[in-house]
């Protein structure tokens, strides 16, 4: 009612008063209404501070950054009895304590995290408070482009009686981020995440979240802070999902389980390229070649339209779907969307191959106990000469080393597959063996990889640079410039090829260019970037480097913390080393402690073609990615039981294993966030030695 009167008055004013005075009055009125809106919603806007938690990864203008702490952020009261909604961004570092300061309440409250909406990136909190003011909200259909949108955040000051911080803009667009968000040009920064945008009369339009159409993790879109591009989840949608969140269940995005034939989501017809097993699409009987025609009664002609229609859906939501097959339209009703796609596991036969062998075939160096290889009767000293699925009909060609050819073929098979191997025994006899592949050890939740206590010392034929034997004269082995005979050993100082970045190498004195060496990329803790720091680290590894044939690479970061953008420099340093020294590409490990460990995880996930292992102490997975076909990645996670992060590290193990990565987790007694003890170092060295297991 008041609104209506104000509007009327204002309209009258505008038409009755002469033009010059009009402008002033209008501006005054606007200013007044903005402040009124702030005052109206302000009491429901709470300040959220967190304590503890991990050093986390956020995306900044320079790329992802590992940030030490989170500043205060904002939340909005959604029920009188203490439910508060906020952005999931505010809690990705798993804080030990969440405190909510309510305007007008003397003491802050300790909050509990009730549930997270992983699709819309909201988190529901509960505090033990009553009679809290709940703001009104704008129905979605009343939100239009160009409407004023006032962003509120309660973070610049601890003085809670102050009005919230305000930035003013307009609604820029509706139906953003696959129809999940509205867009505003009010300046939005991390202090606003979880806070509201409100209209000129003080009704909440939505809850601000960092978001980007290009990514769907909690930090996507952070780099757009203060740019005039901000996103909010409409309050009506928040309201409709509240009952489900209050039950304490995390909500996931609803997935159909198809991959399109074409990557062009705006141009190509939505023809299905792949139907993933155990998904909604598979249950509906969809097949590659089918063309999606309609979802929930709305016709679709592009993949982008499917994404817009499915974007707002949750796991368990039901849709109806029409598709075209052989020029006929078929319909499926009540198709229940899934929350997670079946993840890919890498296969495991159970052998370690001999390295640096220019001859055709693969020599078996070691057979893992209880592995498919052992069950099939494979023994150390055997030589695999042929392989295949139904028949052992594939030969080694000599185009690439036998170990590489075999790995590539094996990587394409799934666990559970039966394979045939022709094996030449030590006595010269050849037998055909049958093995059923397992999943990589350590890649099942709760079952860590156990490194064998003892491995055969003999690991290499020491002919890494010798010309490869071929099975056909016409085949030319892939040409690689072999590393030089003589290379610098000991502590080597180098620069990346662009001359911009320094890095160190530790090359053992017994370095032999005919033996492929493992490469340990040591990402130093922030600040420990001096030559002396690297030297003392290399000192710890001295013996392992000689015994296990390892080279240590130490890229140097001058920043206060590792920046994700620095991964380019690390990658350049690795490539430079690959050119100069004989390095085993299957044993390149990113290794770090604390923030250095976070960087190691980042490198592992983002440079899959280079990194095969990630070994960390006191680091936690923050941006989990999927396993990739043909790109193996194994993890060695260590944590001290005194480290407040230790729970997070243990949880990282489970997360990684749920994505079918191979994990070995070590909790060390009476340690904080420190470097490994001798015992773990020995284990880690053996772990690296088994990275080329098949």
């Amino acid at each position, binding site marked *: 009612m008041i609104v209506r009167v104000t509007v*009327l008055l204002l309209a009258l004013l505008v038409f009755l008063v002469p033009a010059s005075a009009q402008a*002033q009055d209008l501006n005054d009125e606007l200013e007044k209404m903005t402040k009124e809106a702030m005052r109206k919603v302000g009491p429901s806007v709470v300040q959220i501070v967190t304590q503890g938690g991990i*050093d986390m990864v956020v995306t900044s203008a320079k790329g992802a950054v590992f940030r*030490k702490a989170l500043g205060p952020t904002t939340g909005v009261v959604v029920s009188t009895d203490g439910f508060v909604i906020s952005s999931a961004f505010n809690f990705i570092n798993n804080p030990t304590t969440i405190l909510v300061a309510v305007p007008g309440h003397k003491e802050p409250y300790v909050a509990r995290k009730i549930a997270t909406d992983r699709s819309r990136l909201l988190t529901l909190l509960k505090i033990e408070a009553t009679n809290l003011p709940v703001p009104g909200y704008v129905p979605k259909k009343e939100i239009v482009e160009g409407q004023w949108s006032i962003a509120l955040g309660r*973070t610049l000051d601890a003085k809670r009686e102050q009005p919230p911080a305000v930035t003013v803009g307009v609604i820029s667009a509706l139906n953003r981020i696959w129809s999940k968000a509205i867009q505003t040009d009010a300046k939005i920064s991390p202090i606003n995440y979880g806070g509201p945008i409100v*209209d000129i*009369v003080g009704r909440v339009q939505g809850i601000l979240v960092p978001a980007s159409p290009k990514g769907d993790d909690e930090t996507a879109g952070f780099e757009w802070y203060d740019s005039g591009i901000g996103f909010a989840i409409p309050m009506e949608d928040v309201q409709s999902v509240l009952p489900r969140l209050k039950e304490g269940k995390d909500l996931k995005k609803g997935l159909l389980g198809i991959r399109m034939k074409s990557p062009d989501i705006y141009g190509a017809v939505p023809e299905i390229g792949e139907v993933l097993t155990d998904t909604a699409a598979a249950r509906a009987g969809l097949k590659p070649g089918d063309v999606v025609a309609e979802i929930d009664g709305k016709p679709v002609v592009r993949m982008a339209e499917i994404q817009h229609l499915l974007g707002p859906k949750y796991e368990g939501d039901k849709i109806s779907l029409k598709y075209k097959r052989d020029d006929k339209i078929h319909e499926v009703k009540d198709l229940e969307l899934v929350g997670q796609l079946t993840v890919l596991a890498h296969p495991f036969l159970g052998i370690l191959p001999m390295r640096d062998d220019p001859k055709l075939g693969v020599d078996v160096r070691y057979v893992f106990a209880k592995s498919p290889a052992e069950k099939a009767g494979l023994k150390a000293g055997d030589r695999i000469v042929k392989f295949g699925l139904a028949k052992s009909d594939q030969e080694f060609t000599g185009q690439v080393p036998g170990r590489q050819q075999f790995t590539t073929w094996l990587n394409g098979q799934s666990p559970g597959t039966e394979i045939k191997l022709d094996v030449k025994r030590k006595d010269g006899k050849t037998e055909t063996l049958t093995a059923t592949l397992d999943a990589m050890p350590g890649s099942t939740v709760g079952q860590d990889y156990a490194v064998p206590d003892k491995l055969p010392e003999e690991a290499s034929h020491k002919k890494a640079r010798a010309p490869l034997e071929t099975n056909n004269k016409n085949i030319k082995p892939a040409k690689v410039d072999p590393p030089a005979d003589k290379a610098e050993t000991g502590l080597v100082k180098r620069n990346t090829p662009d001359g911009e970045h320094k890095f160190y190498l530790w090359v053992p004195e017994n370095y032999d260019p005919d033996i492929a060496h493992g490469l340990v990329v040591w990402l130093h803790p922030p600040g420990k970037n001096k030559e002396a720091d690297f030297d003392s680290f290399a000192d710890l590894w001295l013996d392992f480097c000689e015994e296990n044939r390892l080279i240590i690479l130490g890229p140097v970061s001058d920043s206060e913390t590792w920046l994700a953008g620095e991964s380019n420099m690390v990658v350049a340093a690795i490539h430079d080393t690959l050119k100069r020294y004989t390095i085993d590409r299957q044993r390149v490990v990113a290794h770090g402690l604390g923030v250095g460990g976070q960087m190691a995880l980042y490198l592992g996930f983002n440079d899959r073609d280079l990194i095969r292992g990630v070994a960390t102490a006191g680091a936690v997975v923050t941006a989990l990615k999927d396993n990739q076909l043909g790109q193996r990645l194994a993890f060695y996670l260590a944590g001290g039981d005194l480290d407040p992060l230790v729970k997070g590290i243990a949880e990282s193990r489970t997360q990684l294993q749920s994505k079918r990565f191979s994990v070995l987790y070590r909790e060390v007694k009476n340690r904080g966030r420190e470097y490994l003890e001798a015992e773990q170092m020995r284990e880690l060295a053996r772990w690296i030695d088994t990275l080329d297991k098949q």
Partner: protein
Amino acid sequence: MRNRRFFVLALATLLASMATAHAQQSFTATANEVNKKMVKLFGAGGFKGLASYGTGIMVSPKGHILTCNNHILSSSDLRVHVYDGRFYRAKVIFREPELDVAVAKIDDDVDFLPHIDFEKEAARPLAEPGDWVLAMSNCFQIATRDEPMSVQRGVISAYAELRGRRGIFDAAFQGDVYFIDAIACNPGAAGGVLANRKGDLLGILGRELKNTLTDTWINYAIPIQAAVDLQREEKLEKVSMATFVREAIAGTYKQSEKRKKEDRGGYHGIVLVPNVIGATPPYIEEVVPGSPAAQAGLRPDDLIVYVDGEIIPSIKMFRELMRQVGPGAEVRMEVQRANRLHSVKLKLTEQPKVQASK
């Protein structure tokens, strides 16, 4: 319902269109008027990402210029371009680091320059969050000679403390400032004007500062009503920016003595858990019997959350903070015990004398 929606829509459209159409006119007059009283400064810098240009405000007809006390002033060759294209050389005559401002004076004998009556402006009450403002400066050195300053529009987001204690480390000024939602604090903008729609001076635009807690750049202006406690001739005095400007113009300003950072550190008797990582939360491991902490009822396993309203994210922060509090002082502390916050008062005492061991 329908009606209401119509009105709201009408209002939004109306306001949007009217505001832009008419505000343009009113802002033009304001911007022109303010621009006459502003100067472009050119001095030291030009390397390492430090701009060699800046912005100032004329505060007397004789060519006194108020500006940010930043690096560009460290030049023997400070040049000033006034609004109509004339240019002069100038010298810094007074600085007040605690207010983060300085006054420079044009070398030539002039007596006709348009200027702001600073004392009159500073006598007005503070502006408040939600007020529409204009930020004017020579950011990015877009203007030289008679070209006008760049004008940006925004609102005051908040009036709050520019944290010097944490988050924003290199802030010279430590008091309350206006945060604004225009991206105004760019290279060369420091010393510029924050004005309201009528052209009243509200504040002096600040430096480029990053809030390291949120990893974001901030945009702020020091209010012209700002005042700081300064140690002048053995006495603690409240000195306002208006006093500084008045005395600087009169040539009588007495530079403050450097504030000494005291390391007083009273005794509390709290033993914290080992500081194993960069951000170990401050859990209490032990409370020394009979100590102030014991008297306050603190217990092992309590987690220190706030000290005097300041959130304490780490052991390091707790120690830094407690070093600044002397014996006899009382601090309020909130600790988390189980799932509740408990508030305690801790009265610090002299550090116990260490017994010389034989």
